């Protein structure tokens, strides 16, 4: 059966190589038959890799401990759900998982476009085949998931071996959230391959910009959404399970996942400049290339152990493969760009600083600055070792100092950008659009200040968050009001109608609102409180509005683990409001300890209590209690971002052509005074 799996993988590699070589030859000789068979080979990779994945999962489900990978990551008592997830818990399996997700994306891209863009798709197929060839090479020769256990007998001859019981899945990973986080993140990382393929293909084939930019944007939104979910799930897992009270530590592996997200965000915005004004073509193409390269860099940093991290693994040779692949990608991209750079000339120039173009430019500038800072900070140990003799690393103060102001500036742009017109905004329009949201923001800031918020960044965040929320609200309201009066409906129906006529724009506003919630949640951390105390039964500690009374602490034991547990009663205003049971578990099979945090989460704050162990001198349990304001807003904001992205990807309801000469200045895109005609915006999502 293992032969079946490895054979399927080998065939997949051959299919990918054929798709690559046949595709190139088909383009060069203009033989449609060859191109078509290359495309079919590219799609067939999906079927073959699926067979390989199915084979490996079969081994997990049947507890086949002759397979090295299964023996290392599973055991008989493991619940079925986790046996399934054990597929991606190690190097070989997760690389196979990566190839599988990539093949799903490639298949979808090739299949959905099989009757469209006949001049573009052959190139797309070639690029996708190239990437798949690399990963399948790793799967087949470097990190093989179907290795069989063997041991040497006394003659030195190897024979097949099997173990009675596997090593089991690490308990830290036996948590539903930890199971969803890698697939989401991988769907993000691999997803960025598709826009990359389309952009490189368009460049190589000199395909008209207006056409490929639509396709690329849509696929980028999908990948970006998954990446966002993956990052937030990772943060939530770190917070809820690891028990250090925080959700982000600027760890190299965390940063690696953030980098393509940042450039992806920049691309989603700058692409609008190319669509509307034909600007930033070179920039966009390189932004897509960079996003893909960063996603490869991300997996390189995670797997190769070249940067030490809490997530880091053994130094392994696989890093070299990824570095070579990155080099090849860069060379190909640069060559494609150089040969076709005249095709990327801009149609227009920047007309005014007070314009939507300018806000997008600043958006991209600071996002790229953030990306650069995070990349620099993450790679600093490696770079400093090359150039100086010492290995220097930087920590959260560096990342926070640079990224917090950038984030606040981005927040400002989020409010300002949509209110500015393309090309140039008149002063009247500025005054009209900005006045009351800005006033609202300042008032909110004033209220915060009088309530004792003195932390400057948190204050600015509050002002800007209110400002942005009010601008979003006004955008919905003004557009809906026009529809409501014209069609004689109520405002709510009008809002729905408005949104469905331009899903990308209004879905985008929902995403912005979600990000505002996330920022508010993060700003809450400026007011975190914590207190640590040895507590014997009967003692209590006070934190915020709560008093925590230690009632008891005991030991619990079962087949799976032994645990030390504290029983705490929480009082507020003299009333008992809840019981908390923070624990520390020792899993017997793997001898791994795990902290079970007790969290009570409300909209206002999280009461987060950790059992930090027993004080060996006094025997008393050590309780560490945190009061973390507004954390729930982060997770809630994340949900809103996902919903907004989904909304933005829906196709528009066909907008009615406006026959009446209505001045649509309430949409906020008043074109410069020379053109008094009706402004009709029909933005179609159809590719």
């Amino acid at each position: 059966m293992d032969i079946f799996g490895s054979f399927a993988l080998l065939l997949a590699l051959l299919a990918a190589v054929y798709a690559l070589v046949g595709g190139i030859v088909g383009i060069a000789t203009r033989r449609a038959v060859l191109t078509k068979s290359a495309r079919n080979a590219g799609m067939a990779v999906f079927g073959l890799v699926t067979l390989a994945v199915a084979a490996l999962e079969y081994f997990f489900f049947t507890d086949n401990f002759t397979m090295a990978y299964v023996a290392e990551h599973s055991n008989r008592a493991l619940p079925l759900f986790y046996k399934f997830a054990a597929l991606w818990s190690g190097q070989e399996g997760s690389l196979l998982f990566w190839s599988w997700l990539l093949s799903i994306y490639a298949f979808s891209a090739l299949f959905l476009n099989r009757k469209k863009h006949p001049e573009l798709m052959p190139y797309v197929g070639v690029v996708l085949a190239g990437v798949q060839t690399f990963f399948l090479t790793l799967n087949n020769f470097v990190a093989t998931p179907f290795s069989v256990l063997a041991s040497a007998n006394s003659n030195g001859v190897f024979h097949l071996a099997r173990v009675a019981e596997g090593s089991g899945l690490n308990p830290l990973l036996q948590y539903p959230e930890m199971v969803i986080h890698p697939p989401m993140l991988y769907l993000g990382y691999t997803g960025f391959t598709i826009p990359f393929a389309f952009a490189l293909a368009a460049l190589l084939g000199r395909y008209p910009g207006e056409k490929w930019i639509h396709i690329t944007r849509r696929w980028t939104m999908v990948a970006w959404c998954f990446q966002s979910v993956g990052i937030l799930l990772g943060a939530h897992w770190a917070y809820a399970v690891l028990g250090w009270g925080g959700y982000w530590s600027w760890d190299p592996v965390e940063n690696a996942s953030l980098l393509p997200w940042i450039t992806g965000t920049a691309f989603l915005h700058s692409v609008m400049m190319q669509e509307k004004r034909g600007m930033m073509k070179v920039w966009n193409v390189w932004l897509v290339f960079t996003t893909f390269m960063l996603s490869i860099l991300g997996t390189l940093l995670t797997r190769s152990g070249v940067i030490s991290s809490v997530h880091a693994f053994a130094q392994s040779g696989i890093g070299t493969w990824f570095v070579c692949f990155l080099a090849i990608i860069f060379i190909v991209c640069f060559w494609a760009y150089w040969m076709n750079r005249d095709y990327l000339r801009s149609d227009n120039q920047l007309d005014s600083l007070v314009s939507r173009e300018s806000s997008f430019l600043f958006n991209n500038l600071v996002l790229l600055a953030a990306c650069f800072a995070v990349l620099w900070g993450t790679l600093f140990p490696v770079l400093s070792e090359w150039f100086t003799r010492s290995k220097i690393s930087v920590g959260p103060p560096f990342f926070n100092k640079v990224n917090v102001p950038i984030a606040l500036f981005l927040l400002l742009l989020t409010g300002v950008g949509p209110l500015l017109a393309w090309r140039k905004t008149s002063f009247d329009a500025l005054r009209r659009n900005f006045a009351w949201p800005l006033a609202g923001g300042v008032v909110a800031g004033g209220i915060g200040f009088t309530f004792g918020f003195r932390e400057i960044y948190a204050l600015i965040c509050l002002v800007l968050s209110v400002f942005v929320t009010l601008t979003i609200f006004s955008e919905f309201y003004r557009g809906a009001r026009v529809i409501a009066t014209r069609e004689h409906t109520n405002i709510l129906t009008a809002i729905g109608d408005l949104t469905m006529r331009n899903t990308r724009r209004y879905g985008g506003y929902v995403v912005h609102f979600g990000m505002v919630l996330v920022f508010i949640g993060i700003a809450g951390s400026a007011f975190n409180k914590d207190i640590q105390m040895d507590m014997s039964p009967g003692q209590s500690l006070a934190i915020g509005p709560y008093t925590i009374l230690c009632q008891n602490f005991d030991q619990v034991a079962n087949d799976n683990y032994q645990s030390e547990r504290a029983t705490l009663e929480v009082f507020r205003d003299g009333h008992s409001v809840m019981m908390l049971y923070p624990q520390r578990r020792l899993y017997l099979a793997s001898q791994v300890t795990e902290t079970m945090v007790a969290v009570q989460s409300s909209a206002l704050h999280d009461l987060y209590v950790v059992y930090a162990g027993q004080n060996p001198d006094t025997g008393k349990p050590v309780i560490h209690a945190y009061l973390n304001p507004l954390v729930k807003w982060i997770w809630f904001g994340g949900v809103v971002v996902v919903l907004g992205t989904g909304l933005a990807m829906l196709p528009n309801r066909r907008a009615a052509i406006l026959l009446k000469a209505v001045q649509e200045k309430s949409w906020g895109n008043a074109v410069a005074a020379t053109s008094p005609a009706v402004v009709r915006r029909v933005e179609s999502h159809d590719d």
Partner: protein
Amino acid sequence: MKARTKFLVGSGMIVATLCMLAYVGFTQSKTYYHTISELPALQGASLHQRIRVSGNVRAGSISHREDRVDFVLEEQGKTLPVSYIGRDPLPDTFKDGAQALVEGQIKPDGSFVAEQVQAKCASKYQASPTGSPAGTQPGQTMNGAGGSGIANKS
């Protein structure tokens, strides 16, 4: 001024501000990585740096005191006594034999005061190094599809 020039000036100011912030953040948090064997050789300014050291926790050396946790790190035969004075609880992965990374400063007497301790996350991508459960055979892995009899480590 043309819009483009104004934009470049604006960008310049933003980038300059960020560089300044980056520099301040860098000096506040830069941490030098040294091995245990390098520590005794440090002198002068290096003695006051923030330092990061990695090593394995010597079995039986972990001792919880009232306001700190003492333990001994060893690597390549050299040892380093460490006192962890941070407020956060030690990571779950921190125990005898674990590979740990400590960050802090070196004291004149050669011991290390750590403000931060990280211990290697029970690796996803590597078989657990902390002892094998009963029944695992030590062995090498062989590529199933090949079967040429030559084993290769995965």
